[in-house]
């Protein structure tokens, strides 16, 4: 560990400098969404939180996130109390911007800690690889684009997720891992997509004995059940007590209110009851494999497949959900050359697919240059670090991956420059369509090769 340079902390310092410089950058409506939530949680008693609808951006995250906003509000009032007024729609004084942006950076320390824990928990033989992976996640262009420009708190959320995954590495902290995941669900329910993998893994490793499926560990079952129930009770209990659960659920899963609200993406988490049924089928083989061979690597691989399934087959999935694939996949991408082969197109496609989130001229060089440096630095580093696999590689997939990466360049040139020069303002759907198709090919391709690698391993 001592010989790994640059260290996580060193990278965090440089990344933080860049992120602070990005404070005046373009911010999406998500900025106003979060400001509004600050105002709601600060100004109203808890039983009014899920009913308030002055702003169209009503509170639609689970209660822990609302409490998190409430905590931020306690500090925000010393910075600029005006941002905490519910009627102050679209309020964005520079104090508000600096405060909200700073909270994203500070809460991302959770991610730094989890990555540190990840490297520390890795076996000595793969420490070098784990360190490179940790740096790649810390410096991820996806997080830079979504959190520090577009505006969200994914760094914090994925920090909790990675911590929970790291806790699942050791037998003694399995229970804690389950609790952390339950907590995470009460922050943001998009992680429900990953729940099947957690269920299968904890059931097999924690609730059942290692030798036989019939060796049920009743004490563990009760411990896990009670803890998770307690977490959910803590989050949702008050709303059950006030008989507000239908309203809370309607907010969290707006599908039940009809599709009329689904025109804008975040409402997408949506449709859960529906998509859940669809999503579970492609995952059954992976879950079975995990159940039969409950190793940590298999667990992370199954999480990755759950992420893929949600991204590829989910209803109204937002491009930001690609993090659900990239984050767990990164943790095992350097397992051997076959995994890395599947990861490469995902790294390219996943990040390019986020480019349309930022459509302003000023941010264009920032997002493309940052992503390009990241891809060059980490794909080359990974290439040097990744061990050879014990099984022969699938030749075709390898060539595909190289060709695919190379194609990204003309695509970017076309969408950002050529299209405008050739067609002007006409056919504006074309660049978006090309980007989407390109990224879809990459994600599907990487999903296929990852599935092959996983099921033949």
């Amino acid at each position: 560990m001592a010989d790994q340079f640059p260290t996580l902390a060193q990278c965090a310092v440089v990344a933080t400098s860049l992120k602070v410089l990005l404070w005046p950058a373009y911010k999406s409506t998500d900025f106003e969404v979060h400001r509004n939530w600050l105002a709601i949680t600060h100004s109203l008693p808890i039983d009014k939180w899920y009913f308030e609808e002055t702003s169209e951006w009503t509170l639609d995250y689970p209660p822990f996130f609302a409490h998190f906003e409430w905590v931020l509000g306690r500090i925000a009032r010393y910075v600029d109390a005006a941002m905490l007024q519910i009627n102050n729609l679209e309020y964005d004084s520079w104090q508000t911007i600096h405060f909200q942006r700073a909270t994203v950076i500070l809460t991302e320390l959770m991610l730094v800690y989890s990555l540190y824990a990840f490297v520390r928990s890795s076996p000595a033989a793969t420490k070098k690889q784990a360190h490179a992976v940790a740096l790649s996640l810390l410096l991820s262009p996806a997080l830079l684009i979504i959190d520090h420009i577009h505006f969200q708190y994914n760094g914090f959320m994925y920090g909790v997720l990675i911590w929970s995954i790291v806790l699942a590495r050791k037998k003694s902290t399995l229970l804690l891992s389950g609790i952390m995941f339950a907590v995470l669900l009460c922050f943001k329910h998009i992680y429900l997509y990953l729940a099947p993998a957690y269920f299968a893994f904890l059931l097999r490793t924690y609730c059942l004995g290692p030798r036989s499926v019939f060796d049920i560990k009743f004490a563990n079952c009760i411990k896990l059940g009670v803890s998770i129930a307690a977490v959910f009770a803590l989050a949702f209990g008050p709303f059950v007590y006030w008989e507000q659960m239908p309203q809370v659920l309607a907010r969290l899963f707006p599908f039940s209110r009809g599709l009329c609200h689904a025109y804008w993406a975040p409402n997408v988490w949506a449709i859960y009851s529906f998509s859940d049924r669809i999503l579970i089928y492609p995952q059954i083989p992976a879950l079975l494999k995990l159940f039969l061979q409950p190793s940590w690597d298999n667990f992370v691989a199954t999480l990755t497949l759950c992420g893929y399934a949600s991204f590829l087959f989910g209803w109204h999935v937002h491009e930001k959900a690609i993090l659900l694939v990239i984050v767990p996949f990164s943790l095992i991408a350097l397992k051997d050359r076959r995994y890395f082969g599947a990861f490469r197109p995902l790294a390219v496609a996943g990040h390019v697919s986020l480019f349309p989130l930022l459509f302003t001229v000023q941010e264009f060089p920032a997002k493309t240059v940052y992503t390009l440096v990241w891809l060059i630095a980490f794909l080359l580093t990974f290439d040097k670090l990744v061990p050879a696999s014990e099984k022969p590689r699938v030749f075709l997939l390898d060539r595909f991956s190289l060709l695919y990466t190379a194609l990204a360049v003309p695509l970017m040139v076309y969408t950002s420059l050529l299209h405008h020069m050739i067609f002007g303002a006409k056919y504006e759907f074309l660049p978006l369509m090309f980007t989407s198709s390109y990224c879809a090919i990459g994600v599907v391709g990487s999903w296929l090769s990852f599935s092959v690698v996983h099921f033949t391993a």
Partner: protein
Amino acid sequence: MSTPSHRPRKKSRASEVHAATSNGSIMLDATSSRERPAFPLAAFFWPTKGVPTSSWVILSSILMLTGLFRWTTGFWPYSGRARPPMHGDFEAQRHWMELTIHLPMSHWYFHDLEWWGLDYPPLTAYHSWICGQIGSLLNPDWFALYLNRGNDGHGLKVFMRATVIISEYLIYTPAAVICVRQLGRMHNINPWESSIALTALLMQPSTILIDHGHFQYNTVMLGFTLASIASLYAGRRLWSCVFFVCALGFKQMALFYAPAIAAYLAGSCVFPRLNSPRLVGIAIITLASFALLSLPLLLGTAFDTYRSLPLPATATPPPLLASLPAVLSSEKSILYPYITQLLQAVHRIFPFARGLFEDKVANIWCFVHSTGVHKLSAYSASTLSRASLLLTLASITPPCALLFLAPRPQVLASALATTAWGFFLCGFQVHEKNVLLPLLPMTLLLAGKDGMKPSVRGWVGYANVLAASTLFPLLKRDELRIPYFVLTGLWSWLLALPPTSLTVYFGSTARSGEEAELHWTSKVLHLGTYAAMIGWHVVEAFVETPEGKPDLWVVANVSIGAAGFGVCYLWCLWQSVVASRLLEGGRWETAKKKQ
């Protein structure tokens, strides 16, 4: 199967031997006796150390990353934003683009001098013309004549920021890359460490803050200067002249370097033996470059004379005209229009009528005047300018004499820095932004012999951090406080300097022993100045100035700066003396043989 297909195609030889010469980026850990990066910036290059990596990958990554910091600094406000009536440097540059693309050339130096009249040399005007033409293609409103003064639109801002960064990447960046490479070759430094020095040079906070925050095009002038220096390193004296004339032709402040460059060129024609063809060549190329530089302006004037276009109604003939013989200055003379143009340009570029210093700048005059040591308002402008001239001459003579007597390329960087410090401290009409000029050659020392060892890194860092902090009052006016703290803090952290680290002063694990350490007097001096600067920032942030003295904090800042820069002048002078080897009993011929 002889070569299994699932093996990696290329197996890299993990530890290829790298050049033995280190300039101080690596240190040995005291306990484990393992190699460690001596400062965080080196840590970021650690994965490529001893690993064969394409130099194109490293170079392009450096350029993209340092570019990101520049571009994102540009997201912040610029000078004079939303500040009527006059706005600031941003409006000046926009206005020049407007006037050069719309007005006939003979009007450029005469047009409405009250509203940011053009007062930079012709190359700036041509550059404005190009930028204005491109900008008008994108949006003609930005540069519509008279209609768009003080425009603070976002699109215009992005365009203008882009012109700065593109100009920089066309001129400054390649020059810096080549210059650092030449230095590395000259001092036999391994390319890995040269890349680190290059990054340190490109991340200089003051340069980024002034050009990409405050808004100016200094890096174009500095880039031509770097190209000129790199040409001297490569022994291409004539190219050096061309580039230096370009620097002068872009911004007159390059004059800070002129005596040193001239002394070096002259010295190289005289020592070790007289070389008159070389001298003649240099003279001819320099004059030709100047002629070429003013040619477009003169051709434009010829065209305007041909179509008998009069000067603007408000134009007054340049005052210098009166001092010429009547044959030339009479209106009937055929040369009259051209001479008027050139003299007007000179008159605009060198505003002798302005004061000794403007605003508050960390030089001797402002220090003496503002701190109340001696009030200078009692003296006439001509006395002051004469005094300034004499003092400047006195301060630049030693480094220039060294360059003339020992024209070795190794002396160049430190002697250029000394000369520029002399101008900055004693010169006439100096701006706080001009501190970029001495900083550039001084920071180049990082890429030279022992450049990253505490003895040099400590001093270069000291000058850079101090310079950035003297720019703080200006940056605060521009609402650039946060970028100032971020970039200055980042740079000093990357090089392990105060206020974030004290290893330069107290960590004694540098690879090559005692001579790399700072002298204890330097340590005391540096730490004292750093403490003063930190104290100043705290006071400035939390304490109101006493009644009737609104400038007190700025004066305090300037005083600390002037004292520190004075010390930097002396250090650079000493470095030049050492590098010139004149102290080694005039035996530099033998010394040369030893090498």
